[in-house]
């Protein structure tokens, strides 16, 4: 399986000392030091989402312990994330739901060497400056896509000692404007930790939506499970690889999600037979030509979406790409009938 899963390990140290002090070679990230002892930390982070209708500022508290333990609390919504070494729990109070999924060794925000390695395939990576962020000496690394304007440019400030990502700036692909900013306002390493912090208390009356060990499937297996053909794009922007295929079958419908990534930017293709009929009225969303079909644009802030109807399912592509790249990917999506053997039974 050529899936490349991105995993981040809490507190795993990845001090980035890129060779020649400026750029990283395509062969490998020379000078990437092996991690010393992982560090636990407590902090407060602020995120500014620069939406079209105005900046939205959110703050959250974060607690992290090596071994994949994490707790985050959003101040405004009281949303809580707990990663307890086995599972990741997301409590979304206003929806009255907890999302639970298996999670091992994840948590924390560190740039892993393999993530950096993958990014090198499609980004120019440069150390651009040093700065102090949250009282820590940090190095700013800029990721500029080779295909200029195809996907967001990013700046990431990394703690030179621990490798923790202290600050992130994301600049939109279409207009190069700042679209997302997150930064630690307070940060303390090796805080006193209470083990209870890393246990999720599910409030009474809250629904838990859980998946079992949700494997990443091969296309043929996904087709069998979901009961619909898995469609894949022939075209992907430089550096994007397929990372995971999920599938489910509920009473009456099947759904498939194919996840792609380039190390930094996300792209997902959804297929679903859950819509009982094609829409009569396409609504106000503007159309986009996709070769054989006409789809529709959805401007969802940082993410752009294209939806369209195929004979076998309704499809949607969501991603952080420019419109022209999204259109190219969507236009190249087709079923690969060679993927699956004829089903043994319905």
């Amino acid at each position, binding site marked *: 399986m050529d899936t490349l899963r*991105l995993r*981040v390990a809490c507190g795993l140290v990845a001090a980035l000392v890129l060779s020649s002090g400026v750029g990283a070679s395509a062969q490998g990230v020379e000078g990437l030091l092996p991690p010393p002892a992982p560090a636990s930390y407590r902090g407060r982070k602020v*995120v500014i*989402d620069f*939406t*079209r*209708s*105005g*900046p*939205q*500022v*959110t703050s*959250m508290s974060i607690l992290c312990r090596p071994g994949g333990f994490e707790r*985050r609390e*959003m101040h*405004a*919504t009281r*949303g*809580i*994330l707990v990663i307890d070494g086995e599972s*990741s729990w*997301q409590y*979304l109070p*206003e*929806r009255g*739901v907890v*999302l639970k*999924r298996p*999670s091992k060794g*994840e948590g924390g*925000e560190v740039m892993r060497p393999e993530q950096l390695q993958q990014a090198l395939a499609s980004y120019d990576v440069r150390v651009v400056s040093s700065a102090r962020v949250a009282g820590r000496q940090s190095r700013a690394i800029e990721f500029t896509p080779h295909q200029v304007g195809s996907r967001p440019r990013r700046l990431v400030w990394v703690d030179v000692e621990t490798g923790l990502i202290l600050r992130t700036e994301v600049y939109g692909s279409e207009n190069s404007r700042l679209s997302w900013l997150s930064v630690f306002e307070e940060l303390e390493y090796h805080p006193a930790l209470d083990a209870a912090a890393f246990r999720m208390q599910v409030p009474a009356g809250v629904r838990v*939506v859980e*998946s079992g060990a*949700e494997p990443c499937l091969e296309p043929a297996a996904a087709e069998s499970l979901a009961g619909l053909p898995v469609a894949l794009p022939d075209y992907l922007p430089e550096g994007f690889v397929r990372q*995971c295929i*999920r599938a*489910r079958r509920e009473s009456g419908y099947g759904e498939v*999600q194919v*996840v792609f990534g380039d190390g930094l930017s*996300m792209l997902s293709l*959804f297929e*679903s037979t*859950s*819509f*009982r009929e094609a*829409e009569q009225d396409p*609504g*106000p*969303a503007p159309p986009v030509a996709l070769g054989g079909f006409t789809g*529709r644009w*959805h*401007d*969802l*802030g940082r*993410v752009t*979406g294209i*939806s369209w109807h195929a004979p076998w399912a*309704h499809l*949607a592509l*969501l991603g952080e790409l420019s419109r022209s790249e999204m259109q190219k990917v969507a236009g190249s999506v087709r079923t690969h009938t060679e993927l699956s053997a004829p089903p043994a039974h319905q």
Partner: protein
Amino acid sequence: MNDARCEEYHELVSAFVDERLDGPDLLRLETHLEACGGCRTFERELRHFKELLPAVEAFRTLRRPPAGFAALVAARAVREQGALTVPFPAARARGRWVGMVAAAAAAALFFAWSWQRLLPVGSPEQKFAARSFSPGVEVAEAGSMDTWMREHAMLARESTLLGHAEEAEFASFNAGAVAGR
């Protein structure tokens, strides 16, 4: 209005906003503004921006000269042939520069415009509000693609804020279940 033509008016708008336009240029611009919504918007935004700069700065404490600066400099200036190197005092006073009136005006201006400070994401009022990412898109009936898209995107966004990429992916895939379908 033609965008290329409007470019040449933009510089006039800049001078207009500074009250530095008169005579035939002023007449030309005013005539154009009556007809061109794009340039009227540009003018509005430029006025806003011109007021914005000092308002933003007003909340940033600019450094004031340290106590004793004048005496120090005068002494050094008069004795500049001399051997004395007069060091700065170690503690630097960081007083607020902004005068009270300027600060109050800046505060009023600052809070008068722009963003809602902390719109709670996903609050009940928000859930399927028209504020969402496609301005003008009506809330569609359950089962339609628009709703589906919005659910997925909003949930993915909340998850991205709360967690990591994996959380967002997982949430996206389970948006239907979250919405109770």
